[in-house]
């Protein structure tokens, strides 16, 4: 705009090369009429100029039908300039109060008051007020001193949607509906080569915008801003200060409420037009406890990409950082509903668009999944990552980790990172229910399709009693030992090689072929096979409030599939081993329980004779259950009459428990099992 005013002033007030006709009366009047005036910067159509002498001053009246210029979006129409008192002291010229009227212009109809003090082409000053622009009346001053010009413009309430270049820039960014009010105090200085310094400061009020999808939107923003910049041989340098202190911003997926947490941004840097790079020697972003960041950046403005960076982040309240910044970014993952406490600091460096190093320090961090999935308490971390070469050793110490109902004790993890790869520097020893879990090997590779992790571990001397109490199972005694030589987690699936041995009930149970799929979904799937060897039935039945059976038990559970931790299918067989060293005895109640399990009818031992005996001898027990959905098929030792023995008796009196029903609903079988556990059977 200053160029246009400058250009107009040249045309209208310095008509050096025009021919003139003069009429003379009692007072001297000069009149000039020009049909057309052409200049490389534009064209003037029909200029009428009248200069009348009144006492010691002159009265100036000028009228131009049209002024057009390539610099003007549209021509100036019907321009009228009037000055009642022009003081001429050739070549000096001054008008303290002039009025300029335009019927039409790129800024619409204008009525501008102006004052001019012209001493020479190198020494003049023009001030103006009432220039209508973007819904506001703008005032200012242009001055020439030697080769240097100065421009000052003040605007109190510019309407953002009517500032054409700004509206265009916002449109280019996809923000169609931008509104708001802007005040600006502009001060610029330059010479014939262009602008040398530029300072703009002001406030933005009621700023709002939205893209078509509503993914980038702001409402009622209020900001103070100040920009200072300097041009040195085509290189711009300067600084920006911005404070957002009210209003709301949604930049998918992050929502910021500046009233709750104002944001201060300070930038100092330079722009290099040749390489189209914006170099920020110092940038500082202060969002209070949510985040404080400072450092250096180089931005590629052509590709709109961060090129180089050295940034320090201070997250003094992770609870706030998580709520405002992290949770929205984690939506859809298993980490989008956490409570996080503590603080952290991070350093990140980028070179040529690539991440070259990252360091994280976390202090006194407690985090918990609000859905009860996991928790970690007392976490202290120093994690280092380098893009090239070996990274410094990293550590994560924690006081306690919970996975579901499982509770792991304090431990220290030492590891190293290399590229997208992570590995342990020393075995990770985690106390676990009076025993321990030793993770010998843990690797983590980040791939495009998600993490690909592997581990091997040893479990030793874990108390089955403590574990069963924690899991709210019937209390069992014994210990768990096991080795997982290799487990791999990839594509939402955890696959475990090797056997987990559980020493319990004086025997052992082997869990093998463990596979967990869709771990983060609402219905995780677990597949495994189990082998039971020489369990002491007396201890087992005591634990599960089942009638007492003495002897040993073997078993196999094949093709076990749990969906959402409930059995979906399995094929199980439990039976007396051939070389049992314990006496085979079964109590009255156990007979009742087994009978009920097989038939759903209690009270099998109604005979007073049989009730006389506390327990009976048996040859073998066997139970086969094949479950698939809600269908379960029960079997045992084949019986010649078509049924099956659950208990094949021996001695006198001999008791056989023979099942007849083969197909039952799994839900009712479960209900029967539960009722046995809950109530027991009173044998009369």
């Amino acid at each position, binding site marked *: 705009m200053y160029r246009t005013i400058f250009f107009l002033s040249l045309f209208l007030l310095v008509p050096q090369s025009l021919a003139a006709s003069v009429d003379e009366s009692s007072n001297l009047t000069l009149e000039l009429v020009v049909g057309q005036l052409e200049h490389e910067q534009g064209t003037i159509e029909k200029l009428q100029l009248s200069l009348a002498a009144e006492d010691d001053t002159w009265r100036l009246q000028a009228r131009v039908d049209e002024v057009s210029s390539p610099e003007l979006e549209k021509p100036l129409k019907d321009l009228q300039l009037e000055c009642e008192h022009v003081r001429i002291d050739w070549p000096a010229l001054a008008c303290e109060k002039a009025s300029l009227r335009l019927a039409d212009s790129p800024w619409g109809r204008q009525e501008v008051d102006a004052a001019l003090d012209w001493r020479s082409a190198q020494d003049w000053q023009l001030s103006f007020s009432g220039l209508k622009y973007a819904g506001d009346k703008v005032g200012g001053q242009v001055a020439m001193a030697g080769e240097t010009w100065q421009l000052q413009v003040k605007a109190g309430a510019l309407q953002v949607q009517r500032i054409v270049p700004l509206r265009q820039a916002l449109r280019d960014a996809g923000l169609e509906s931008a509104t708001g009010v802007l005040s600006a105090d502009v001060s610029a200085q330059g010479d014939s080569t262009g602008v040398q310094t530029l300072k703009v400061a002001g406030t933005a009020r009621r700023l709002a915008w*939205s893209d078509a*999808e*509503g*993914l980038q*939107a*702001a*409402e009622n923003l209020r900001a103070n801003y100040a920009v200072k910049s300097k041009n040195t041989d085509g290189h711009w340098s300067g600084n920006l200060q911005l404070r957002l202190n009210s209003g*709301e*911003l*949604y930049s*998918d*997926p*992050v*929502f910021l*409420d500046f009233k709750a947490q104002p944001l201060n941004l300070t930038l100092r840097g330079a722009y290099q037009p040749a390489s189209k790079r914006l170099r920020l020697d110092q940038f500082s972003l202060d969002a209070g406890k949510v985040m404080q960041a400072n450092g250096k950046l180089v931005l590629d403005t052509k590709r709109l990409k961060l090129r180089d960076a050295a940034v320090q982040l201070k997250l003094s309240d992770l609870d706030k950082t998580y709520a405002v910044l992290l*949770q*929205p970014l984690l*939506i*859809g993952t298993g980490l*989008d509903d956490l409570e996080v406490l503590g603080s952290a600091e991070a350093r990140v460096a980028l070179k040529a668009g690539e991440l070259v190093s990252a360091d994280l320090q976390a202090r006194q961090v407690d985090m918990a999944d609000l859905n009860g999935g996991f928790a970690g308490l007392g976490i202290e971390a120093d994690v280092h990552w380098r893009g090239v070469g070996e990274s410094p050793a990293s550590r994560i110490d924690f006081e306690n980790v919970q996975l579901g109902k499982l509770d792991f004790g304090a431990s220290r993890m030492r590891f190293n990172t290399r590229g997208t790869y992570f590995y342990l520097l020393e075995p990770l020893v985690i106390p676990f229910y009076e025993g321990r879990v030793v993770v010998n090997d843990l690797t983590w590779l980040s791939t495009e399709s998600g993490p690909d992790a592997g581990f091997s571990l040893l479990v030793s001397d874990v108390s089955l009693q403590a574990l069963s109490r924690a899991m709210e199972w019937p209390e069992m005694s014994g210990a768990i030992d096991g080795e997982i030589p290799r487990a791999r987690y990839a594509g939402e699936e955890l696959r475990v090689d090797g056997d987990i041995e559980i020493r319990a009930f004086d025997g052992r149970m082997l869990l093998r072929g463990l596979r967990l799929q*869709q771990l983060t*979904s*609402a*219905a995780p799937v677990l597949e495994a096979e189990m082998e039971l060897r020489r369990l002491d039935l007396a201890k087992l039945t005591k634990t599960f409030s089942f009638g007492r059976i003495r002897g040993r038990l073997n078993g196999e559970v094949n093709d076990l599939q749990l*969906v*959402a931790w*409930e059995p*979906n299918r399995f094929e199980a067989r439990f039976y007396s081993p051939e070389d049992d060293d314990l006496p085979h005895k079964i109590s009255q109640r156990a007979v009742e329980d087994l009978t009920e399990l097989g038939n759903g009818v209690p009270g099998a031992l109604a005979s007073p004779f049989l009730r006389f005996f506390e327990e009976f001898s048996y040859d073998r027990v066997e139970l086969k259950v094949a479950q*698939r*959905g*809600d269908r379960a098929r029960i079997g045992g030792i084949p019986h010649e009459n078509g049924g099956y023995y659950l208990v094949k008796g021996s001695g006198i009196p001999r008791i056989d428990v023979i099942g007849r029903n083969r197909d039952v609903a799994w839900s009712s079988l479960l209900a029967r099992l539960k009722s046995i556990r809950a109530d027991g059977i009173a044998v009369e």
Partner: protein
Amino acid sequence: MTMMQRMIGWPLMALVLASCVTINIYFPEAAAEEAARTIVRDVLGKEGESNGQAPEQDKPQSSVQNTQLLLIAARVLDALVPSAHAAAPVNIDISSPAIKRLRASMSRRQSQLDPFYRAGAVGFANNGNVTIRDASAVGLRDRGKMKKLVADENRDRAALYREIARANGHPEWEADVRNTFARVWREEARGGYWVQSPQGSWNRK
């Protein structure tokens, strides 16, 4: 029969017989629709029951037509080849614990999603998911919450379709289950909800 005819004929016969067996295991569209309607009405609550009376006028989706064509083909082949098994009546089981858990989770979420459905911000997409169709229909503050609800709902819906297929012993039915649900969600949507037609256009119910 010449040697040539035999060489071509036997594999063709084998193919026809094999086809018969394959076609008999068809997706039980009607049973799946009934199951889907039960679940959808349960999730959407009582108002959904009164809304679902008028099935939509859209032509059946191509997958349905394909199923019917296959069914007809199967019946023709059944008549031609006596050894082919008759298609047994199939029920869709929706009683597995995983399905119950997913239904409960979706029912709990429904009351939170309802205002977003009514505002037109979230709609029932034609792929059986919910989708944000106009984020600007809700305040900036609620957009993150809406995004999370939509992500959680879609995670449950994906798991539900997968579980129904798996619980019924045919994991390969997942896409058919999803298609059936997409239609039933559309039909059962409450008044004021936005639904996407199979052709992709959005309409307010």
